[in-house]
């Protein structure tokens, strides 16, 4: 059934169908010339089409909104990473807060599509945005408190009034925080540039915790293709350790020199 011929034959057809015209409305079928059994089939399938269309449209809306959430969350990450460039960190958080309000608007929009059982029905489409959001506010929490954001904190951030706008699954959370090391590493490199030893220490402790914890979960077989995430996590940790090592060497070199110069 899946011969190469299959695809070769289908692709031109697919191209030809691209401009989707809804010209196959039930009224367009000349029902008077068809047999009873055919009419019955066509009536059934017209209903199925309406259901499938509604489903595909809803899925499309989730994909679009998720993509917007991803884009805005990335902007928050970039805003937060500017923290090493400013003297007053509060201004960075203020900017991020403004962007956060915009993300919440998007979550309000997507939450309409993700009520009840639909939350998991469209999770595959919604999860990239949710993960990126968790990464952004995870970095935020790390910069503010030096701690790993908990799932409860994520839900709290997503809450407007009664409860969270969307539900966050354990997978969403794990995949969201497993992207954190990359960002923390970026912050760490910036901090080294500024010679902020405390910040670098904070990063290293965090990354080691993440390696211990996330590796445990990712390798537990609960997450789909964890290899990439593990590789990124390991490389982030290694990069940070190398950078910290060079910084330490340079510092001891400098102090040794200043001692010898003093002598």
């Amino acid at each position: 059934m899946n011969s190469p011929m299959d695809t070769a034959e289908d692709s031109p057809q697919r191209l030809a169908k691209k401009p989707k015209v809804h010209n196959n409305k039930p009224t367009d079928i000349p029902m008077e010339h068809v047999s009873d059994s055919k009419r019955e089939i066509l009536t059934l399938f017209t209903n199925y089409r309406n259901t499938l269309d509604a489903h595909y449209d809803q899925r499309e809306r989730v994909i679009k909104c998720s993509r917007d959430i991803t884009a805005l969350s990335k902007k928050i990450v970039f805003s937060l990473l500017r923290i090493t460039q400013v003297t007053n960190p509060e201004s960075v958080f203020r900017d991020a807060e403004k962007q956060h309000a915009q993300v919440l608007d998007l979550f309000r929009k997507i939450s309409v599509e993700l009520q009840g059982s639909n939350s998991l029905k469209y999770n595959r489409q919604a999860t990239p945005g949710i993960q990126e959001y968790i990464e952004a506010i995870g970095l935020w929490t790390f910069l503010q408190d030096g701690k790993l954001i908990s799932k409860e904190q994520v839900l709290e951030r997503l809450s407007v009034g009664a409860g969270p706008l969307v539900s966050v699954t354990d997978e969403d959370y794990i995949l969201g925080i497993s992207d954190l090391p990359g960002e923390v590493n970026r912050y760490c490199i910036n901090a080294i540039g500024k010679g902020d030893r405390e910040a670098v220490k904070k990063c290293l402790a965090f990354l080691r915790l993440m390696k211990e914890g996330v590796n445990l979960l990712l390798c537990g077989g609960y997450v789909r293709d964890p290899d990439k995430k593990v590789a990124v996590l390991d490389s982030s940790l290694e990069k940070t350790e190398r950078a910290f090592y060079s910084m330490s060497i340079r510092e001891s070199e400098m102090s040794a020199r200043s001692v010898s110069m003093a002598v």
Partner: protein
Amino acid sequence: MDVQVFVDLQDRLDQESTLREDIKSAITELNKTCRLASAKLAKAHSVPKSQTKEVTDAIKPQFETLRQNIGTLSNLIQPVTFYKYHDMWSNAIQSACSLVVFAIYLDDARLATPGDIQAYLSCRVNTENTDITEFVITLEEYLNAIVSLFNELSRLAVNSVIVNDIQRPQEISTFASDLYAGFQLLNLKNDNLRRRFDSIKYDIKKIEEVQYDLRVRGLIS
């Protein structure tokens, strides 16, 4: 900082994997019944039309078992987490549905409706795009089961000739093209259903070839 967060997560995921194991074993049972039923139902290909009733009657006990299997599976699932595990049993449910679809075609030469599926499997087909509050068979699963019918029909057209029933391919052809017309009403996306829909034309072609062979020899008018 402590690793408690991860330990808690691990606990939750461990509980979940216990549920997954239970679902898996329920699906194994379901698949077993499906295989047995489909082996029995395949006999319909080797008998004349007059005897197909015996074949479909013979798998009545398997439908009873299928109802129980699906009941066991559905008891494991909370409606709100239905879609989380849905992929696990989708194929098995599709096979179960395709058995009903084929059996009903053999009995009445018509398309099984969602109502028929419910009558045979005691499980509702969700034909609306709405929130669900119970274990359901999805519309995609039902439609996929119908696609499988085309495959059976093309075999049946060939095998009818083997058992000397040269009128039947004509009936099969009319039914298959009516059903195909139904499928063509759907605006399918590039997903699994679309790929399977694209394969229908090969089955239609096979049925048409049988008709051609009969007609060119003057065996049917």
